[in-house]
Each structure stands twice: as C-alpha cells, then as structure tokens.
C-alpha cells in the first residue's frame, strides 16, 4: 500500500468509527432537533468512509468489516466512547473537525484526480459539520465540563494528525503542542481498551454467516 493509500485508509477508519460513535447518540441526544441534526453528521461520516473504501478497493464492505481488529488504523480519538457525556462529545467534534479539515485540505491538492475530487466533496459536506461544531462551542464556551474535555482530548487530537499538520492544529486552537510523553500511547495503532469488544459487535452479524450477502 502506498503512503497515500495508507493515509486514505486511516481517514476512512476514523470516519467509520467516529460515524458509529456519533450515531450512538441516536434517540438519546439532549434535544430532539439536535438528535436529527447530529445523526446527519454521523451518516455523512459513514458515507465518507464508504467513498474512501470504494477508492481503495473493489469490495468496500470487505475492507470496512473483514479485517482483524489490529489491522484497523483508526485513531484513539475516534474510538473513545462518550455517550452520555455531551461535553466530551462536542469537544471531540470540535477538535476532530478542525484536524480533519487540515488533512482534507492536503488531499484536495493531490495529483490523483479521484482523490482530489473526493476530498473536495468531503470538504463541502464538512462545512456543515464545522458550522455545527462552532455553534455548540459557542454555547458551551463557559461550561466547565466542556472546557475540561477540550483539555483532556487535546493530545488525542494532535496524535490523530501526521507531524506536518500538528503545528497547524495548534495555531488554529491557540494551544501548545503537547510534549511527546503526553502523546505516548495515543498514536494510531494503539487502540482504546474496548476496541476489541467494539470490533466484535461491529462484525458479529457479518461473521455469523461467512461470505453471505446482506
């Protein structure tokens, strides 16, 4: 797999897992109208994952679901389970959208027209995500829960990006980059504790009848 393909797979895995984490709020979001809106964001993310997997493989479903848990390259930030904590959910949303924007921006400049084209489409959908994140960030600005969550998740957000984009993220948030020992254990490949259980559940139906069409 080329370096670019690896990056695309990382983004796809992030979006797949984050899409699922966000869809965990379906039916139990703080406000009904927000429930509907947030679900659209989750669907977009799963849709982005699908489009990226389709770029990488003839069989996007196989790529999405048939790997061993250790073969997934999602970042811990996407994997963390926050329901029913809305403060941390929004903190992650704000951090993730900003970080994702930086790497999508990079992909938009790709030599490969398929990659650049898809990055453009993803970017246009994520305009709405960013507006939504900013809207909530504005409302929760003074909330201790939210501020603490931002502090807690900051190293995770940094660890999500390649080193060349980390400065950009720090500049965007007006924060300092965490020291290396704070980033230890947060890099891709070091999955969160309940990742194996999450993988089990995510693949249980698919594995129940091997090779079946669903």
């Amino acid at each position, binding site marked *: 797999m080329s370096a670019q393909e690896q990056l695309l797979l990382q983004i796809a895995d992030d979006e797949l897992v984050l899409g699922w984490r966000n869809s965990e709020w379906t039916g139990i979001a703080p406000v009904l*109208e927000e429930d*509907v809106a947030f679900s*659209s964001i989750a669907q977009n993310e799963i849709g982005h994952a699908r489009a990226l997997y389709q770029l990488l493989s003839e069989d996007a479903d196989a790529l999405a679901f048939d790997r061993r848990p250790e073969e997934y390259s999602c970042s811990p930030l996407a994997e963390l389970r926050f329901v029913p904590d809305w403060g941390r959910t929004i903190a992650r949303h704000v951090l993730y959208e900003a970080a994702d924007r930086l790497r999508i921006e990079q992909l938009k400049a790709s030599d490969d027209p398929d990659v650049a084209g898809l990055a453009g489409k993803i970017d246009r959908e994520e305009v709405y995500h960013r*507006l939504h994140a900013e809207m909530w960030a504005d409302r929760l600005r003074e909330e201790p829960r939210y501020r603490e969550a931002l502090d807690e998740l900051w190293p995770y957000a940094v660890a999500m990006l390649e080193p060349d984009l980390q400065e950009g993220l720090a500049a965007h948030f007006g924060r300092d980059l965490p020291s290396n020992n704070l980033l230890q254990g947060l890099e891709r490949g070091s999955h969160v504790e309940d990742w194996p259980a999450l993988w089990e559940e995510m693949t249980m139906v698919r594995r129940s009848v091997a090779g079946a069409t669903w």
Partner: protein
Amino acid sequence: MGAARDPRRSGVIYEVFRQERKGQAFEHAGSVAAPDAAFADAYAHEQYGRRGESVALWVVPRDAIREIEDFPDELGKNYHRVDGYSLKVKLKEARERAGTAAPPDR
C-alpha cells in the same frame, strides 16, 4: 399559532416554510424549538431538507408571525366577484334579438 408565549416550552419556536422546487410557493412545513436563530437554521435544515425534499427554507420566529382571520362580508359584496354576475338570461334574449340563437339540440 399555538402556545407561543408559554415559558415552559422547550426554547423559542421557529416556523419553517419550505419550497419544494424553484418557482413554487413557500409552504408552511412545521416548526422547530431552538435556543437561537443559528440553531434554528441548523435544525430546520436537517428536519426539512436532509433528503433533498426542499430547495429552500424560510425560518421565522413564531413571534414575528401575525395571523389575520377576520374577513367580514355582512352585506354580500358580490359586485366584485364572479358569483355576482349571471348573464344567462340576458345572453339568451340578446341572441334572440340578433337572430343568432343556437338551435336547442346543439
């Protein structure tokens, strides 16, 4: 308009009007509860447009809308309506006078 001013309800109510296709009228579609206009826009956008069912929306605080329902017509003002004009009899007489009356079985 409903209970617009009850403080127990969930936030400010915004009415949503949707246009299904360019050229069509905006029709009232429903309402969302939201803390402010930005949230109302986001919520209306998803509730009334996530499936491409609308090309445009108007989002308006309920308090900005006034309803008018009282249209008295006590003295039968049919002079400026189509139902105030029955020309059948006069037309028949005019045709007879001009000799242009159509045979009855046509």
